[in-house]
């Protein structure tokens, strides 16, 4: 199965608003999910310039942008993706 890619923005604004701690997301998810996801850091994605629609920290999961990201938001998103993956996989 293709891994779920979590790309966490490490630009100044995202870092200051909490993205550094999100890099350790693997510590707070179920162990069996860990080998299904890949966490990487990225340079500033320039989305944080306008706080109105996109608050930092910004996280990109399989191409979908999550703004104002925190552990809960990422976890909720992962639950959906992993369930989807499991359903798609033939028994």
């Amino acid at each position, binding site marked *: 199965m293709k891994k779920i890619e979590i790309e966490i923005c490490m*630009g100044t604004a995202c*870092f*200051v*608003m*909490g993205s*550094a*701690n999100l890099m350790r997301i693997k510590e707070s998810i179920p162990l069996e999910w860990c080998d299904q996801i890949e966490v990487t850091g990225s*340079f500033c994605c320039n989305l944080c310039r306008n706080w109105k629609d996109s608050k930092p920290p910004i996280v990109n999961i399989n191409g979908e942008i999550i703004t104002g990201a*925190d552990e809960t938001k990422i976890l909720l998103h992962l639950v959906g993706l992993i369930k989807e993956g499991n359903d798609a996989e033939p028994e």
Partner: protein
Amino acid sequence: MLNLNNHYTYLKKELLWRFINFLYRDGKRSAINRIPYEMISTTENSRRCCVYKDREMIKFRLLAQMGYRFTDDFDESYTLQEYYDRTDKTKAADLPVLTVIKAACSSCRKSQYHVTELCKGCLARPCQSLCPRDAMTMKSGRAVIDLDKCINCGKCKTSCPYGAIVYTPVPCEEVCPVGAIEQNDGSSIAISNEKCISCGKCTRSCPFGAIVERSHILPLVKSLKEKDDMTLLLAPSIVNQLPGTMSQIKSALSDLGFTAIYELAESAQIVAESESDELLERKSEGHSFMTTSCCPAYMETIEKHIPELKPFVSHTDSPMVTGGKIIKEENRHKKTVFAGPCMAKKVEAFNSEYIDYVINFEELGALLMSREIEINDYPHKEEECDLTVGLGFATSGGVAKAVEHYSSEPIRSVSIDGITGKSMNLLRSFLKRAPGGDLVEVMACEGGCEKGPCTLC
């Protein structure tokens, strides 16, 4: 203490960012009145009773950023702009460092044990038989604690097989090592200035964010805008607090408008060397031990709570003051700004002629965000000198290690990792029975400065 990334810390940093944006934008001064409305929209779910209270609390937080102190007779009837106009923008806030936003304080009731509805009023009643003060009575089939008799020992809680007894603490009181939190007539807490050591633990533990630090950001931004000759003294704990390498961080900070960046790891090495000489000298004079002096919250603890220990504290200045001295002796018109994770440094700076402003890492981060400075965009340069020993000052045990590094004789050290009621008793006991080492390193924050109250990660 609360986790580092919660709704309150996010709000605090967002507020700083908006405030600094306002300070840099030379537009209408009335724009400051809009900040609470920009942050809390009517459609948003309020965190308190209503959005109007949420906004009012933002106003008070902004006032603390301007350096205001909320005394009993504080007049809250002006608008933000009126306060802003009245503020002396050239002066850094004085002492005390901390102030309480009374309306934000949830007026937690006294720490107590409480029997919940999970109680089954069982036959064995271990809570009743174990209570040393006979405070447990039964009323309509459920245990009830007589709070006049209860001494908060917690035996009932641990004995209940149903987990029916809970403990509700007053979070700020719980973490304050010196008993400086006073319950104020049931309406809000107050901080006793005679007792407070400005460690900042309460600010990080209050779930309502009611205890705030009075900032120096206003005079600092003014100086930055006017391009004053200013040196930023960067605490060793900066490592890992911002993205990029040290050289990238330094270039980025220069672009904020500081004329020079001085790494305090450098003066920390001077301090460690001087403390190692001092220790050997004291030992030859017959002293049994010496404690470090770089932690300002510890120095406050000595001053206010354990003055008997004063003769054993090192006379060497902290890395901040040593660094400030070097800069000011070169040119006394230069301004010096300390940036670190610490609140108590404001007390030390207030009492020193060598430091003008103190800002914390949250404020530094917000400044970079506001100026849209991207640290990763700067080229990385190799460091000219090795400051590994000095950088150790940020971590518990690191100061002792640095002193050992420079000592010509072997040193045995004891590390006090975090000031708590317990460790204060241990410190007092050293007067009667010398510690098992020559050097006692004391850090008020558990883990050292890098775990200080104003850190970013």
